């Protein structure tokens, strides 16, 4: 950390206010925000969705959508120059040269029709008068610095030929090629797998140190904050509610909102609750395989083994977590078990019935025993039907009368802690967390034996996530349900699971008691995965308890 009194800050946001268009619930997206970033400093701007953190970042770059969001007050000074008052031409000179930005989605932030080298070169031709050879040398040099293998080949590649992590490195190279004084990173690792995230965070830190860049880092993830921040500013509803050195804010938060946020981050330590030893097995799979593709007449036959030899079991009252990175096959397994897709081979035993190859007719009778909750709360409910109609659909499919079904729906709404009188409302009248509760109610209306949660809390803000997790756990206990919990988030898995299966490239590489797997991982991949989790040295749950106590 730097001494703020002696060196002037690189970026100084002073009492910034950004107006929302008319007709929104609040007038300002950003309301009187003041933040400064000193030389060689990484400042994290943390907040939940809608807190105004991204709007603040885009204001600095002058990239706010015209006519929709307008800065109406305050100043943003980059090396003393107010960018809010800069002409369009001056702003263009600054962008890419003095200040740069990297974005959340490396998949979409690069132009798919230009090679990576050309896209970096464009920065050089726009801002410098270097000749061809000098430009090429500079491109190869920066690609080297972001630790991409074989820079000439990378420069000649199109974005779709690279992995997500590699694309984000290209973005970083493009942002830093002219050594800007300020780098703005808008959730740059959110879309990446945890192991890639670790590498990118490390790269940003390293390169920031060598180039002495000031970094404004936007994130929602306190793990990332613990990993990278020098200072932290916490935002809520367009205002900065707490600001200070990272260590102090994370360990000794003052404001209730900060305390709540940090307290909501799941702990890494498995809960280790006592379990009934010999509860009956509800679900067991035996050598379950799912293979995609393989053999058009003209295409090269390339089969993808999405899941291979997956054998797991879940007992009544128990939660099995399947953890893994994207493409590990964890969702494929969940969807096979729910028979939304047909497994290629193997067995799925529900109690003693093998449903792996069951016909549609037989399946229908068995469907109600397995229910699934999906990731995206905005697409899981038919927007044209009332939530009541969505909840009673299942029971009425199996012959329940409307009156009785609605009666059940009302009691389920209370169970998921929503107003039973809200059954005649439509999904858009509920928030994401509330919709996820409705989806849980819809699943429970079938009185299932097994509940599958497929990344069911991944799209939710951390405070909402904590509530939904608690609700799921409570329901599992009260109804003595077997639960299959699919997640990429190790913290979430540690908090809710009794047993854990770690998947990698379609296979289960480690499978055991949660306490065992988390405490003493055996497989190399599991260890690498755990080591990469951001903020692993930082026990949030107990820090919050400490702060509260």
């Amino acid at each position, binding site marked *: 950390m730097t001494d703020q009194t002696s060196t002037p800050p690189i970026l100084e946001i002073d009492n910034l206010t950004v107006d929302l268009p008319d007709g929104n619930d609040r007038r300002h997206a950003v309301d009187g925000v003041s933040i400064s970033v000193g030389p060689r400093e990484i400042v994290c701007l943390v907040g939940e969705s809608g807190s105004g953190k991204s709007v603040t970042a885009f204001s600095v*770059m002058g*990239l706010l959508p015209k006519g929709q969001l307008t800065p109406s007050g305050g100043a943003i000074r980059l090396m003393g120059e107010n960018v809010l008052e800069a002409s369009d031409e001056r*702003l*263009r*000179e*600054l*962008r*890419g*040269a003095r200040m*740069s*930005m990297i*974005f959340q*989605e490396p998949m*979409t*932030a*690069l*132009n*798919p*029709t*230009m090679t990576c080298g050309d896209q970096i070169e*464009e*920065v050089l031709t*726009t*801002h410098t008068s270097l000749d061809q050879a000098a430009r090429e040398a500079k491109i190869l040099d920066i690609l080297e610095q972001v630790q991409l293998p074989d820079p000439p080949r990378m420069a000649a590649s*199109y974005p*779709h030929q690279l992995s997500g992590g590699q694309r984000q490195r290209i*973005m970083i190279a*493009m942002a830093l090629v002219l050594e800007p004084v300020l780098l703005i990173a808008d959730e740059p690792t959110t879309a990446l797998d945890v192991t890639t995230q670790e590498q990118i965070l490390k790269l940003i830190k390293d390169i920031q140190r060598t180039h002495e860049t000031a970094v404004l880092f936007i994130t929602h993830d306190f793990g990332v904050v613990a990993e990278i921040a020098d200072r932290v500013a916490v935002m809520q509803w367009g205002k900065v509610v707490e600001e200070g050195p990272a260590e102090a804010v994370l360990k000794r938060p003052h404001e209730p909102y900060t305390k709540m946020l940090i307290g909501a981050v799941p702990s890494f330590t498995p809960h280790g609750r006592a379990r009934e030893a010999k509860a009956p097995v509800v679900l067991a799979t035996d050598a379950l395989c799912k293979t995609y593709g393989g053999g058009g007449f*003209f295409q090269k036959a390339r089969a993808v083994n999405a899941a291979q030899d997956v054998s797991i079991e879940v007992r009544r009252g128990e939660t099995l977590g399947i953890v893994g990175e994207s493409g590990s096959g964890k969702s494929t397994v969940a969807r096979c078990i729910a028979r939304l897709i047909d497994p290629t081979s193997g067995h799925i035993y529900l109690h003693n019935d093998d449903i792996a190859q069951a016909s549609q007719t037989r399946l229908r009778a068995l469907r109600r025993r397995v229910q699934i909750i999906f990731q995206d709360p905005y697409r899981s409910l038919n927007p044209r039907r009332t939530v009541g109609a969505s909840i009673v659909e299942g029971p009425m499919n199996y012959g329940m009368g409307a009156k009785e079904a609605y009666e059940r729906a009302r009691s389920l709404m209370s169970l998921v802690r929503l107003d039973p009188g809200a059954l005649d409302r439509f999904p858009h009248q509920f928030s994401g967390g509330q919709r996820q509760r409705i989806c849980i109610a819809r699943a429970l209306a079938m009185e299932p034996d097994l509940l599958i949660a497929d990344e069911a809390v991944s799209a939710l803000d951390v405070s909402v996530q904590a509530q939904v997790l608690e609700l799921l756990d409570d329901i599992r206990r009260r109804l003595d349900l077997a639960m299959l919990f699919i997640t990429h988030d190790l913290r979430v898995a540690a908090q809710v699971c009794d047993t854990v299966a770690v998947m990698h490239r379609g296979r289960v590489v480690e499978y055991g008691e949660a306490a065992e797997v988390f405490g003493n991982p055996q497989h190399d991949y599991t260890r690498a995965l755990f080591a990469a989790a951001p903020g692993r040295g930082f026990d949030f749950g107990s820090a919050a308890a400490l702060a509260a106590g």
Partner: protein
Amino acid sequence: MFGFIIQRLLATIPVLGMVAVFVFLMLRLTPGDPAAVLAGDNGSPEQVAEIRESLGLNEPLVVQLGIWIGNILQGDFGQSYFFKKDVAELILLRVEPTLALATTTLIFTIMVAVPIGVIAAYKHGTWIDRAVMAFSVAGFSIPVFVLGYILIYLFAMQIDLFPVQGYKSITDGFWPFLHRLILPSITLSVIYIALIARITRASVLEVLGEDYIRTAYAKGLTPNAVLLKHALRNAAVPIVTVIGIGIALLIGGVVVTESVYNIPGLGRLTVDAVLGRDYPTIQAIIMVFSFVYVMINLLVDLTYSLLDPRIRY
């Protein structure tokens, strides 16, 4: 790439086969005996029977279909009832004017439609955008022949800038040839320009909302550079696709335009054939136009890989 061309060429076979079946069944659904028509009013029953035999009309329907397709593949479309001529010959004579009209129209359309579409997208929400959109809706709404007559009335009758009607082959000199094509081409291109300008605007507008456009602005590029270097290239695939699909519109327009301007092309032949119930000619024209349409769209498919590096065969 070569494998892909072969694959796509093979994929057009079932489509064209389907067209052939439709066209064949259409002829068989018509009332009347083709042999009787060919024999003419004074044909004796013996002559009719002879013609029936020679045309294979006594064979089962499937065999007839086979014979007919086999003949087409050899370039034999049969005899025209109306012109009493070889249909293939008839069509070849009429190809040049239609080809000339279609080509000039296509060139003119692309030269006008793509730039105005791009400008409309870039000036989204301004009066320029609204003007282009208004033109586009109007272009869709005004019937080709009404437009043709309005243009004749204004530019050929009132100010005598162009000949009223007619066609001159390019062998009669380039200027007479072009001079007579200008009004028909403008007439024909208006609806096509409306279509292409609209899709250009829509796809450029969509691309302008992409993340990489934001990245380009974040690099400090000027709006012009963003528009031309990043947006247009990425918007090209849907534009080219609609140019291909729009050929159907063009073919329909050719029929009308040639009638209005008295151009002796395939369009005029179509109308004459329909009025004369000249089924072999109708069949042949549909087969030829459909073949051209399918082949142009195949070409369009192949250009995708030039426009978008993600599409590789």
